[in-house]
């Protein structure tokens, strides 16, 4: 009896110490290091500057809870926005780092500890968020492959690509396969004047005028809402922090990327 008891105590303690190292101080540093590596690589890659990066650079401490919250926000935004948003490289990399840590902790924890189950479930939830985020992006990339790539190739060099390097490779290969399939199945059997796929017309594009639900995370002044009729009856509105709106995506799309607006 005594023996068993001390076993449980020591295993709890071991998880506890693991915990504190993985979930607080230790990883903060690592995360941050890892993170700066990530952004450096990014800025040399694209020479791009953007709010998110700068925010992150100033932010020396980010707790795992905040990190998960960031992932959750990115996931929701991506889920509800009609177009592909910027890839949150830093968040994704940090989360994967976290997952690795947690898996290691679970592996090194003693068998039969009841905390393992709770941690595994938590881990499953995080993985679901991450995978779902990446999946939603992949679906969008597939659906709008030709317009996304076209936009990406047209973008000035000082603007950061919405795609990660891996996603760019995926999009190019995917589009190549689609073209090959459509050509072999249909186009090459048609008379010569109909063999052009004419992607600008035939391939789907995101509907930026879709209505979205959103919450404002900050006070935003002077959002220009055009009424789409060229009557000049445009409206300028101010939004207060914490307000809820249902409106067209297009007028607020720049605020989604900067994090001032959260889609819900």
């Amino acid at each position, binding site marked *: 009896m005594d023996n068993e008891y001390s076993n449980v105590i020591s295993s709890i303690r071991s998880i506890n110490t693991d915990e504190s190292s993985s979930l607080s101080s230790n990883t903060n540093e690592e995360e941050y290091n890892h993170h700066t590596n990530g952004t450096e690589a990014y800025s040399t890659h694209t020479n791009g500057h953007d709010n998110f990066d700068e925010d992150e650079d100033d932010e020396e401490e980010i707790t795992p809870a905040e990190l998960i919250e960031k992932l959750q926000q990115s996931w929701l935004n991506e889920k509800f926005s009609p177009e592909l948003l910027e890839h949150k490289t830093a968040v994704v990399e940090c989360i994967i*780092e976290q997952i690795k840590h947690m898996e290691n902790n679970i592996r090194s924890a003693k068998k039969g500890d009841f905390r393992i189950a709770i941690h*595994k479930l938590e881990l499953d939830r995080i993985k679901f968020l991450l995978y779902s985020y990446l999946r939603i992006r992949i679906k969008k990339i597939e659906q709008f492959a030709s317009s996304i790539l076209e936009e990406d190739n047209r973008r000035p060099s000082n603007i950061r690509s919405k795609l990660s390097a891996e996603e760019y490779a995926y999009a190019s290969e995917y589009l190549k*396969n689609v073209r090959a399939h459509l050509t*072999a*199945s*249909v186009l090459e*059997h048609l008379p010569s004047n109909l063999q052009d796929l004419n992607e600008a017309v*035939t391939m789907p594009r995101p509907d930026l005028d879709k209505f979205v639900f959103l919450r404002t995370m900050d006070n935003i002044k002077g959002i220009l809402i055009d009424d789409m009729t060229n009557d000049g009856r445009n409206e300028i509105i101010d939004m207060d922090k914490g307000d809820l709106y249902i409106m067209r995506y297009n007028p607020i799309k720049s605020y989604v990327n900067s994090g001032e607006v959260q889609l819900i």
Partner: protein
Amino acid sequence: MLCQKSFELIKQLDSNFSNAHELSPFNEDNVRYTFEECKTLFAQNQIDVQPVLQGDNSNLPTIQMRHAALQRNKRCLLTYVYTRMNWVASLRFELATVVAPKHIKANMSDLEVVWFQKYSKTLANYMKSLSQATQTNSGYIYPIDLTQYTKPPKSLFIHVRCLKDYGEFELSDGHTVSLVKDSQHYLLASDVQDLIKQGILEHID
């Protein structure tokens, strides 16, 4: 009537996807017929366009009508192929397998089989590059399989019932269970996701 067969293709799509896990056979006959129709229309237009070039416009409405029919045929064919193509690609996620089940594969055209292989390969490359990009100095690669975790996890373990005889199945902790038809088990949800997708196990509450 012109464009009838190509329109039938579109109607067929509609009935096809009401049933989630079935693909109707690739309608080779209608597709071929439509190609022939296009060739005929095109040839007729080539002949009729000659007087127009000479300045005689009496054929113009006929030519325009045929041209519209051609455009419509093209659009229907592309839609048919494109929609099926996306459906086939979605199998990769729904069944979490790189091999299409036999009854579905039988209804795919040769090109669609090739497409599915290519798609799986492209996706595999992406997932591999994703795992490698996150490789740390320790050299530990975290494998990312996006076909996993498709549903928000409610609990770690779930009750499942076997719908088919499967045999021995190895769990992630090294233990094996024997999956016999109609037996019930209480297993790790992440272990059995694939088997549920493949219809071998059923999730019961």
